[in-house]
Every structure is written in C-alpha cells, then in structure tokens.
C-alpha cells in the first residue's frame, strides 16, 4: 500500500520538467531522516508487527534516497545518475514488496501460532515452527540487504547512485550524497541489529512463559511464504533478470533513451552477472564447508552425553527469564542514539533491602508523531480558530481585556476592540469596509509597484519569483 505513495511521486516526477537541484537534495534529506529514524524506532519496538511497519518507513527512506539521486541526476544532466537513482529505487520497491510481504506473512504465522505479537513473551519458536523460522530468517537476511538475497541488489544500486552522486560537481550535492552513503551504511547496521534482535528473541533461545503451546504453521501458509522466499532468492542470485526490467521503468520516469540507460548502468557498477557468479561461489563454499564439517563430526564422533543445557559459566539454575529480551538487547544501541530518540524509562528501583517488586519499564515514543504532527495539527486549528474569531484566545473574550487597558490608551483600545467585535459579529458595515479596504490596498500596491502613469510598466510580480 505504501508503494502507491511512491508510485504517485514517480508519476508526478515524470510529468514535471527536471526540478531544480534543491528539490533533489530535499528528497535525499527526507530519505536519510525517514530511514535512520524509521530503523531506530523499529529497534525500540516491542510488538512484532509495529516493528515491521516502522521498518517499512526505513525502506521507504532508502527508496526516497534513490529517487532523490535520480532527480539530482536529472537536474545535473547526468544520465548515469538518473539511471542508477531511479533504477535503484524501483528495484528496491520490488524487493521490499517481496521480503516485507514474506516478513508479515511469517509474523502472522507466529501470532497465529502463539496468539501474541509481543516479542518479549515469545521465544524458542524455531524448534516448534522450523519452516516459519527459516522463512523469517531468509526474509530478515534480505531486508538487511545482505548479499546472497534480493535486498542487497536494490541497495547495491542505490549505493552506486550515491557514490556516483559524491562525484557530481556541485559541492553541496556531493556532500549530501556522501551523507546518504553514511546514513545508508548506518541503516544497514541498525537493520541488522533490529532483525537479529527479533529473530533471536522470537525464534531462538528458550521458550519464555505466557504463550500458548505453539502449533506448527499450516501447509497453506507455508506454501504462500515459500513462493515469496523462492522469488527473494531468485532475484538475489540472478539479478540479471530484474535489472533491465527496472530499466524500462526508469525510461518512463526520466524519459531517458534506452541506449543511455544501457550505457549508464555498467559505467559505474559491473553487470549484474558478476553478482550471480559470486552467489554461486558463496553457495559452493557453504556446501563444501558443510560437507567437511559433517565428515569430521562423523569421524571423531564421541559418545555424546545426553544433550546438556547451555554452559552458563557454571551457573546451573538459568531460567528462560534470564535470557536477553528485546529491549535489553537493543538498549545498548538505543542509549547511544539517546539524543535522537529520547526514550522514556520509568524505574521503580528496589527500595528496601528485601524489597518486593522492582519494575523497569521503558518505551520509545514515536517522536515524529507525538512531537511534530500532533502539535502541528493543534496549532493549525488554533490559528484558524483565532482568525475566525479574531481574538488571541480563540474565544471572543476581547471585550473584558479592554477594561484593563491603561487610562490613556482606553479610547484607542475601545476602537480596536469595537472594530474586531464588529468584524466578528459580521455586521454589514464591516463587509463594505472590506471592499473599500481591498480597493485601497490594491491601488496602493499598484501605485507603489508601478509609479508614474506613463509607459507600459512591467509590474514587479512579487508572486512570480521563479528560483530556477
């Protein structure tokens, strides 16, 4: 669904003439902010689905960066940048649809199996629903953009665009592209942390209390997820299939000739074929190493005692509750980004020596939502309320305040209060006064803007400044 926004943006971009450079940089800035903040909020979440949703914010940030780079290419007239930017964005849109879909499906399977999405109460699901766990791991690897899978292909081209951007002439856009590279790297790292946290806490380790006995995911769900997983791997291993496909898309957006696109892409990044070669090498290595390991283990199989509990450095009574939970796992990262997130922590420290319940509760409020938009909407309605009632407080209590005005100013204040009251009451005199006032203003501007009666005066069109 989020992609419709992206689609709208791209469609409009294809209509508008190439926008000035500043728009492109603003777009990249948006991408950076939404990416970094998105993944940070994702890291701080406790609910599985909210976490995935915030992650979409991060991926949209990456797509935004790609589009920004495409626009920058358009503004600077560098077809390579345009091809890489829009191509990367489109590819990432496709990949994001695949692995995010897979993630939500398997999250659904988790919730269906255990009845809750609360990460801290889940655990050890890999044993009960191994297939679901495998799918989630696969999707997690591709969403962090790690090599063998499809997430990497999209990010790889966006990286190419950003690196190409750093070479663009105007210093500011080069700087912003460098910032883009750094933030994309940071996002990659944070995404990795976030999904390691989710996978580790939900699927691995010992089962925490509070969840139903997990049932295996039914066949139908597994089939659906299977299709997406196969697609992810296919694109990851054979990017050559997809890249020309996005080429067609780019040509529509930036009306770039087919020739230019073909020439532009390889100038910066090697043809996608090399990626598939490396994927083959990678899988080959895994296979050989696995075989070697199995061989060694068979050879020196030793009489294994019954599988023992994990070595807890000698502490025998380790309970599942002592495992790392989601918030503790992410806390070290979150605390280092405290400035950005300002997480709230409520600590009921143990009071006495034998204190009863100590309780630590920390959650991160979505800053954009709570500190940016809510006040913005409140202020907008207050301003319109003020204009409607022409009083500072929003309700017409102006009359009382005039009584407090100083003696000397009283007549003047009375007139002003009378006037605003009249306007608020909507009396006819005020309406006619509006007409006279508009006439006055219009002629004053006209005379001020075009003094002198002679000649054909070109009025200084204040409104028509065209910052090209």
């Amino acid at each position, binding site marked *: 669904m989020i992609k419709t926004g992206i689609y709208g943006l791209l469609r409009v971009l294809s209509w508008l003439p190439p926008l000035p450079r500043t728009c492109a940089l603003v777009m990249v800035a948006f991408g950076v902010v939404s990416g970094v903040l998105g993944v940070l909020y994702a890291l701080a979440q406790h609910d599985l689905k909210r976490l995935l949703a915030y992650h979409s914010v991060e991926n949209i940030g990456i797509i935004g960066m790609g589009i920004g780079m495409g626009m920058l290419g358009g503004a600077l007239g560098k077809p390579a940048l345009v091809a890489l930017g829009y191509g990367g964005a489109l590819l990432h849109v496709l990949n994001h649809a695949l692995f995010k879909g897979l993630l939500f499906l398997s999250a659904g399977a988790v919730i269906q199996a255990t009845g809750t999405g609360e990460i801290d109460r889940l655990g050890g699901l890999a044993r009960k629903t191994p297939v679901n766990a495998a799918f989630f791991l696969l999707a997690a690897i591709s969403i962090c953009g790690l090599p063998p899978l499809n997430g*990497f292909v999209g990010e790889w081209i966006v990286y190419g665009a950003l690196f190409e951007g750093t070479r663009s002439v105007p210093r500011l856009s080069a700087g912003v592209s460098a910032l883009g590279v750094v933030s994309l790297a940071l996002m990659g790292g944070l995404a990795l942390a976030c999904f*390691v946290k989710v996978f580790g806490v939900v699927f691995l*380790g010992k089962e925490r209390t509070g969840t139903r006995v997990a049932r295996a995911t039914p066949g139908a769900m597994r089939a659906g997820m299977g299709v997406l997983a196969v697609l992810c791997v296919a694109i990851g291993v054979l990017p050559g299939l997809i890249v020309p496909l996005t080429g067609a898309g780019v040509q529509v957006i930036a009306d770039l000739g087919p020739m230019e696109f073909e020439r532009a892409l390889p100038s910066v990044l090697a043809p996608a074929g090399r*990626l598939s070669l490396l994927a083959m090498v990678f899988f080959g*290595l895994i296979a050989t190493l696995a075989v*070697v390991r199995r061989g060694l283990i068979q050879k020196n199989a030793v009489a294994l005692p019954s599988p023992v*509990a994990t*070595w807890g450095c000698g502490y025998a009574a380790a309970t599942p509750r002592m495992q790392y939970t989601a918030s503790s796992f992410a806390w*070290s990262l979150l605390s280092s980004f405290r400035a950005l997130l300002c997480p709230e922590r409520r600590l009921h420290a143990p009071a006495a020596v034998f204190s009863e319940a100590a309780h630590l509760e920390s959650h991160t409020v979505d800053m954009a939502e709570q500190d940016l938009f809510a006040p913005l909407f409140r202020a907008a309605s207050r301003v319109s309320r003020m204009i409607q009632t022409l009083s500072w407080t929003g309700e017409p209590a102006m009359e009382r305040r005039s009584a407090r005005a100083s003696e000397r100013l009283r007549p003047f204040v009375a007139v002003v209060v009378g006037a605003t009251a009249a306007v608020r009451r909507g009396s006819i005199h005020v309406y006619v006064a509006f007409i006279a006032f508009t006439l006055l203003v219009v002629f004053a501007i006209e005379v001020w803007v075009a003094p002198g009666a002679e000649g054909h005066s070109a009025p200084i069109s204040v409104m028509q400044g065209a910052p090209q």
Partner: protein
Amino acid sequence: MTVLRAIGAVPEAVAVLALPPMLLSIIAKTKAWFGGRDGPPWLQPYYDLMKLLRKGVVYSRTTTWVFRAGPIVNLAALLCAATLIPVFSDDTLLGFGGDVILIAYLLALGRMLTVLAAMDTGSSFEGMGASREVTFGTMSEPALFLSFVVLALATKSLSLAEMLGAPLQAAWGDVAPAMLLVVAALLIVLLTETCRVPVDDPATHLELTMIHEVMVLDHSGPDFAYITYAAALKFLLLGSILVHAALPHASWALWIDAPLRVVELAVLAMLVGVIESSLARLRLQRVSLLLAGAFVLSGLAAVLTFYRTHA
C-alpha cells in the same frame, strides 16, 4: 576470467589461506616479547586448529540448526570476501565495479550469523556478547563506508582493486593528509572488527567483559575451528586493505610483490601486538566514542578530498 588466470592464482590463494593463523602468532609473540615471556610457539594457532578439527562436538538442548549454520556461513562469507580483496598482487580474483559494498555487506552477513548462533544458545552471557557485537558493528559501518567514499573519490572508481592500486599512489600525492586520516580510521575499524584490545580483549576469561569470545563460547570442535580461522582470515583481509591503502604502489612482478606484502602484514601484526600490550581495554561507553572518532577522522578526510577534487 580466463582459465589461465585462475590457475595462476592458485598458489596465491593457497598462500592467502595459510597466512592468517601466522599473523595471530606474530601478535602473540610480540605481546609475549613485551611481557618478557617467550610466548606460545610460532605454529601454536595451527596446532589449535588441527586439534579442534579432530575433536567431537557438543550441542546444547536449546540450539537449533541456526547454531550449526552460523560458523559455516560466517567462514563462507569471509572466503567470498577474500576473493574480492587484493592481498598480495593488486588485482583480485573476482573483483568488479561496486565490489566495495559487497565486501562490507559480506562481513555484515558473517557477523549476523555468528550473532544469531550466539543467541540460539539462550544464555544471557551470549546474549550480552551478541548485543555488544551488534552495537559496535553498527557503529563501525559508517566509518568504513566513509573511508570507501574517500578512496572512491580519490581514485574515481568503485572496484576495490583499482581503489587500492596504482591510482591511489597518485591520490597520495595530492591528498596525502586525507589518505593518512583514512588509514587511521581503517586501523580503528580493523581493531573493532577483529576484537583486538582497545575494543575487546581476546585473551580475557571473564565473560562479562568479552564481546567476541563470549559469543562463540558454546561452539566446540570443527565449528569452533571454523570460527577461529574465520577471525584470523578477517584480520588478514582487513589488514591487507589497510596495508594497501597505507602503502600503495604499482603492481610489480608477483614474486616481488608477494614477499613485500607479507612483510608489511607482519609489521602490521606487530603494530597490533604493540597496541595490545601498551593499551588497556576501553570501557564500553568509551568504545562508541572511539568509533565516533574513527567516523570523524574519515569525515575530515572526506571534507579534505571534496575540497581538493571539487576545487
């Protein structure tokens, strides 16, 4: 990639695979020399590997297949990265435009699997190690990428082989200070990634203080061998990037280049040994400060190169 070149590369590949444990022993030796001890014999790491490969494996009840896959994928990722990084000669086996990003993300893939394996055991110690590893890994990525940006800018190309090859020599000419900063930043990233002293103490026995060691606490037998070898290989790869960045020169004949690079790597290992013996571990909060420092260094380098290239 002609078949001839592949055959020609085999001896070099064998050398690359054999060298890493030797570097670890050089570090151990320098630390021992500093401590006035003899230190373990030169081939100790090889003996350890041999011993581990011959030992049996013990798995805890709570672990799943992820625990078993962790070491394998980690080592495979690193071997893949090895094919992309110039160690002795200046061109790489499979290098291509944009492989810089692939290398960084292969390292990240390795780290992800090891961390997941650690969390699979379900013990709070390994969880702690995992959380720290992820935190410092995330913080080192920006510095690494910014250094790549600087190298790409200075040498106008995105393939690591060219970035660290002949064009870099010219780059040292006009943006020498920036290159110096990049080398410093890469050194700090090396120390973080391979868990050397200022960030993490490989030789400690107190789990609470470890980062990398505690994650691999539960591995045994061949898995543990894979992991130790992977750590050594990672040191070699990042080391060779650092060395190539620090001392770039046009690629002479292989038989001159190889020994020269080996000597340089040995010197680097000794340098790391010296650092380990002279510095104490940093408190965890200070480590993020150190990584921020690395980021600032490469940032400054970037500003200098921007200023110069976009004059």
